[in-house]
């Protein structure tokens, strides 16, 4: 058990290095010469050369990568070209809305999608099953901003139940905070829900056909007990895997959702950074989200042993 955990944790190191290398290459091959920009229009080639040397830009690729990575693991993601602020500082300012949006989306999606999948499997072939599967296919196919605009149009513009746009920090009261996040979370969670409901249904169907489920039925365990205790626990591994993998869709979708609902989070920061070609910021956000994604999938892998004690690597 412990050796598995240690090995699994160690195995993320090459992945993290790989991600860092890609993200660094991004800045490395980015157009525009920082030395020339700092030197200004009047500088001679010799001046530019001197500035380049003073910035360390004349060193070989791998040396610069090592230097950069050393700074990254010490929490230094460089300085924004546009605002001249440290990238970590800019990220810290914007992280709360994004994190709130993701956590709420996760809670909402899981609490809806898993029961949906379980019920669809239980009532296999019925109209409920078909309805759930249809919803799942539509959830897959409708891009997040389409759902976002549709929800905002219906519930904010037409019915006036919820605010159209914006974000209210949790310090200013929980209710306003929740109200601004409900529509974005539903929009963002749609694909995720579709993914999870489908895999839950499929694995549950598999599990419900197993002998121990029949045994449980035979000894008189109630329907709910069978579904949620005996079956769901054994269906957990594939479901949790998809929850981990699907997180990528959540991250990508957050960028769009924040644009639709004017939420001042990391997604908006990314979009603004792209429009201004602010490479250090793009790099920082991509790196942060990728590390988060790796971390989540690490946690998922470690959860396997919890759900299925047979797994020993």
């Amino acid at each position, binding site marked *: 058990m412990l050796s598995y955990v240690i090995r699994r944790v160690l195995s993320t190191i090459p992945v993290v*290095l*790989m991600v860092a290398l890609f993200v660094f290459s991004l800045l490395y091959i980015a157009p525009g010469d920082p030395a020339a920009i700092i030197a200004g229009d009047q500088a001679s080639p010799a001046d530019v050369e001197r500035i380049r040397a003073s910035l360390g830009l004349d060193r070989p690729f791998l040396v610069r990568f090592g230097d950069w990575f050393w700074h990254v693991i010490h929490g230094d993601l460089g300085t924004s070209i546009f605002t001249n602020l440290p990238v970590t500082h800019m990220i810290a300012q914007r992280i709360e809305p994004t994190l709130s949006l993701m956590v709420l989306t996760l809670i909402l999606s899981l609490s809806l999608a898993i029961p949906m999948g379980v019920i669809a499997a239980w009532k296999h072939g019925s109209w409920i099953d078909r309805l759930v599967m249809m919803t799942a296919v539509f959830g897959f196919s409708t891009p997040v901003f389409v759902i976002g605009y549709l929800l905002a149009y219906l519930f904010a513009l037409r019915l006036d139940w919820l605010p159209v746009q914006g974000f209210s920090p949790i310090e200013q009261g929980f209710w306003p905070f929740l109200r601004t996040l409900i529509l974005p979370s539903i929009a963002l969670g749609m694909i995720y829900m579709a993914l999870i409901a489908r895999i839950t249904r*499929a694995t549950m169907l598999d599990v419900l056909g197993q002998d121990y489920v029949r045994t449980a039925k035979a000894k008189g365990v109630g329907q709910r007990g069978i579904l949620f205790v005996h079956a769901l626990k054994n269906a957990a591994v594939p479901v949790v895997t998809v929850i981990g993998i699907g997180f990528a869709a959540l991250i990508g979708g957050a960028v769009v959702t924040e644009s639709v609902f004017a939420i001042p989070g990391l997604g908006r920061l990314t979009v603004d950074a*792209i429009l201004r070609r602010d490479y250090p910021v793009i790099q920082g956000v991509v790196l942060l989200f990728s590390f988060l994604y790796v971390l989540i999938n690490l946690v998922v892998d470690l959860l396997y042993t919890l759900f299925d004690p047979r797994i020993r690597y």
Partner: protein
Amino acid sequence: MSATSHEYAAAPILPAILPEPKRRGRIMGFIYRHPTIAFGGLLIGIMIFIAIFAPYLGTKDPTALAPARRLRPPSAVYWFGTDMLGRDVYSRVLYGSRVSLVVGFAVAFCASAIGTAIGLVAGFVRKLDAVIMRVMDGLMSIPPILLAIALMALTRASVQNVIVAITLAEFPRVSRLVRGLVLSLREQPYVEAAIASGTRVPKIIVRHILPNTFAALMVQATFICASAMITEAILSFIGAGTPPIIPSWGNIMAEGRALWQVKPYIVFFPAIFLSITVLAVNLMGDGLRDALDPRLAKRL
């Protein structure tokens, strides 16, 4: 059965004990057996038709400005209304299908081709396997949309660059799929037999491995096509995709964004077209998966 005049007892003629098989035309039979493929295929067919014949479907020049007629609501003259520059939204949406379909199909093809090539190498060359798969793991750890966004930030906006960026974000998944298939196919008796009888590796790949990866690859390619269309729209929507001068669904939505609370139709028409197209491709993928690989269908 009384017709049997032979000396030996004849088995009863089948139709006598089996119900008459229903006779269907080939097309009706296909629709009956694979309704999702048929429906998805029909929708994709309609979209391809629209994309090819956009100039002949009552459209105007999608980029023609007419400030005097801006922001007209949908009417008999302007079916989908006009945008803030007076351009005809109906024409723009119809022409926009070209971008989505080209990007979707091109990415599906390129990602499958590159992914297959890399997957084959990883599956066959043991020495390279670990290195290649670590690189793929790294690429796959960057959420695809973010990777595409970052790549687009490096280059100038063009449809080709969008295709390249989304392909780079999608192909690692194909390579992992193909590598897995190769590893399991290599253990198959017929491949072992081919190796034992001295068949050279390229021939084994072409004759025995590739045909058996085709089904899974087709299904994967369909889903990549759908996801590429969404990614293209997202990139254009946030201003990092197809150049604004080309009408694409993402671009039309991006332009309608500022006004969507008062003129929601500018956003909704491209949104509906995009959703229907992606739905069609996904239905096709679902149907193909069920038809080509029942085991996979049960798992997902």
